[in-house]
């Protein structure tokens, strides 16, 4: 196998950002037709390393060799010319254009400057086939699910003859089905000799997919695992430098008074479905279901983003119907949203400003910002959530994905909510921090907070929930107590397979 040099050989890469040594002396090799997984805690430097390979960032030190020849990619275009394509954590497609236009964006086949429409669609459908998508190439990208959009991104990479495709947390917003589909495509590509670098915090996926795993810790190489050495525990040990028990197991306590009670609540997304449920003090209730089952819409309705179109809602026995988030917040409800970039953060503001945003109103002095209270709030969030940031003034968009999510959680904890709504709370969060977040949820519950969380990760639902509401097409198809919980029953309810359930 080692007769020919590896396809890609990265040596002693260093990269510095203001206040942060993101990478130090990092080595990496990639062979032909191999799936290499890159794992590590939040802020370990995974995305930075990949952005360097893809020409987004230039390294401060080190060399990159492709086919034994040193290369330098100073732009995404140059990297593509070398056959390296990066599929970002956040997708970069233009929703208002069709599939074909997106695939060839910036690389349109043309004749004397005029785009050749026929050619573009013929070629696009060829690439689409390779990723197993059967849509007409003039479908608007905005009309595709995220999973399908991702496949379009991959087709786009294939269109520039990428030999190395890098996927940064591709499955974090995919449904189970879509994930399986993606894996099939990845396996196909591998058999066609294309090399894949795969980043994920879902270690199960890593085990299933990888030929080799490379681990980063604090911007340095922490070790490498060959195919037969890959296991959950082995990876975790390298990532965090110690052993972690596999799953978090919750110690439920006796729940108290009912905090939130929904009676025949109807959301604007599914106006003919009536939802009735309640969550009590100290209770952690999970909402399971497939993507599109109306889980996010339910949380958004409780939080006043899209007001309910019918039914009643009681918080601590008092009727409320939040029409705006502020009303929900004043009533004691907090929501950590699913899409942190769009809804969770103000990306050009600092860690301090982001973590204090909802809290400012509470600490104000006749409209004036209480700056010392603000700094305290921010410091507390950083400490409690163990946020890796050089200082409070760091602009939030420069934090790693997982650390951004921690800021979102931190800012809501500062509000001491009665009811905490969490939409995919651990998306993009590393194993170690995940457990910290679980512990935090448990502490909050123990202090009397009612928690309602949506999760697509079965382990999380099984491990954390005292009770689970399963949703399907906007309706609650089942409610399971802890002792009734199993993956099968949840999946059956989620697909509304009543006979079996």
């Amino acid at each position, binding site marked *: 196998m080692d007769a020919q040099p590896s396809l890609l050989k990265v040596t002693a890469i260093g990269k510095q950002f203001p206040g942060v040594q993101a990478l130090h002396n990092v080595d990496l090799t990639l062979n032909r037709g191999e799936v290499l997984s890159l794992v590590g805690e939040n802020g370990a430097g995974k995305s930075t390393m990949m952005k360097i390979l893809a020409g987004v960032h230039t390294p*401060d030190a080190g060399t990159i060799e492709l086919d034994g020849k040193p290369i330098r990619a100073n732009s995404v275009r140059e990297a593509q010319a070398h056959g390296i394509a990066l599929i970002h954590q956040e997708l970069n497609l233009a929703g208002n254009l069709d599939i074909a236009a997106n695939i060839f964006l910036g690389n349109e086949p043309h004749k004397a400057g005029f785009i050749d429409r026929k050619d573009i669609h013929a070629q696009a459908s060829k690439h689409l086939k390779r990723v197993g998508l059967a849509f007409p190439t003039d479908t608007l990208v905005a009309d595709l699910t995220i999973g399908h959009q991702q496949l379009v991104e991959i087709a786009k990479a294939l269109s520039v003859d990428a030999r190395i495709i890098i996927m940064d947390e591709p499955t974090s917003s995919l449904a189970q089905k879509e994930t399986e589909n993606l894996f099939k495509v990845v396996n196909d590509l591998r058999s066609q000799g294309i090399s894949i670098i795969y980043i994920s915090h879902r270690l199960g996926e890593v085990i299933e997919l990888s030929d080799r795993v490379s681990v980063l810790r604090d911007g340095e190489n922490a070790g490498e695992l060959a195919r037969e050495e890959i296991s959950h525990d082995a990876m975790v040990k390298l990532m965090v430098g110690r052993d972690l028990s596999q799953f978090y197991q919750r110690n439920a306590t006796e729940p108290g008074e009912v905090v939130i009670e929904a009676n025949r609540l109807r959301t604007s997304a599914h106006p003919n479905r009536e939802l009735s449920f309640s969550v009590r003090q100290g209770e952690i209730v999970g909402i399971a279901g497939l993507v599109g089952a109306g889980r996010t819409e339910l949380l958004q309705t409780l939080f006043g983003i899209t007001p309910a179109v019918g039914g009643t809602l009681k918080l601590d026995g008092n009727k409320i119907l939040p029409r705006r*988030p*502020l009303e929900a917040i004043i009533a004691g409800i907090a929501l950590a949203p699913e899409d942190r970039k769009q809804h969770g953060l103000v*990306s050009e503001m600092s860690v301090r*400003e982001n973590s204090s*945003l909802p809290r400012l109103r509470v600490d104000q002095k006749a409209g004036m910002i209480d700056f010392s209270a603000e700094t305290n709030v921010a410091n507390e969030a950083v400490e409690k959530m163990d946020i890796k940031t050089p200082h409070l003034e760091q602009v939030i968009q420069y934090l790693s994905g997982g650390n951004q999510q921690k800021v979102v959680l931190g800012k809501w904890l500062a509000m001491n909510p009665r009811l905490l709504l969490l939409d995919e709370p651990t998306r993009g969060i590393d194993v170690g921090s995940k457990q910290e977040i679980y512990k935090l949820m448990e502490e909050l519950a123990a202090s009397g907070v009612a928690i309602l969380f949506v999760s697509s990760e079965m382990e999380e639902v099984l491990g954390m929930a005292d009770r689970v509401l399963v949703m399907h097409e906007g309706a609650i198809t089942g409610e399971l107590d802890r002792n009734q919980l199993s993956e099968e029953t949840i999946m059956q309810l989620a697909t509304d397979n009543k006979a079996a359930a």
Partner: protein
Amino acid sequence: MKKNILGILGLFIFIFIFTAYYSEPFLSAYNMQNLIKWSSLYAIMGIGVAFVIITGGIDLSIGSVIGLVASLMALAIKKGWDPNFAVVMLLGLSLGIGLIHGLLITKVKLQPFVVTLCGLLVYRGISRWMTDNQTMQYPGTDKLDSLFSGKVLMGSFGLPAPLFFLIVVAILAAIFLNRTIWGRYLFALGNNEDGARYSGIETDRLKIVAYVICSFLAGLSGLLFAYELDSVQPAQTGEFYELYAIAAAVLGGCSLRGGQGTILGVIIAAAVIRLLRNSINLLGISTHLEYAIIGMVILCGVAADEIIKRVMARRRTAQVTTARK
């Protein structure tokens, strides 16, 4: 929200010294008083539009609001209204205009560009119609005269009234933007409106407030301009002023993408624009070139600002590197 205003300050000082060196009358008390007066007027408009730009919006109607207020004030005096009452009514009218803009933008969800472009046409038309498009004189109404266009003597140097208006407006605006929660909210929503809403910020209300502030300051400028000019031409007074205001805001560090801006930057930038006009006149450069020169300077200023920002970011990185070694 610290912003680098050194660049624009440097530009101001450079043009100032340059003109002072080559033009004798530049430093005369008369010229200086004029420069201060007009810079202040421009800065008041600029501060107004800065609020709107920080939310990610735009207001193209400023010049027409100025024209409308100035024309109606003259008309009111001519019709024998109590001038004080007229002032209050007209300031109220400007607040109302801003409110309508804000409501159309947030509730009907029209684009700010469209709403205020229509405003530009509508208010100009109304001014011309109500005054029969006649040039109107401002007869002396002594108290208001000295309030809006009087001078406070410092020795022999008279500080023009608009300067004091500017000082009050600027201090209030700076406190609002930097010290109050609503100022912070304004920046947050300019940056990510959804994110702000999800944090419990009443984004619609704040945007309306921004348009109200902008139109109010335009109305106030209208009164100041009117008393300054002593006569009003309904078809022309205030024309293009929205562009000067926007230029001052942008040159002063506001990003049209929203979420950025400082009051001090806007004031200095307004002064730069006035100073340029003044220099062009005094240095004997063809006044036909005036627009071209102002346009070029703004373009260079904004470009330089961008470059300085990048260099600073790089230098910060370098410092960290050396600190580690």
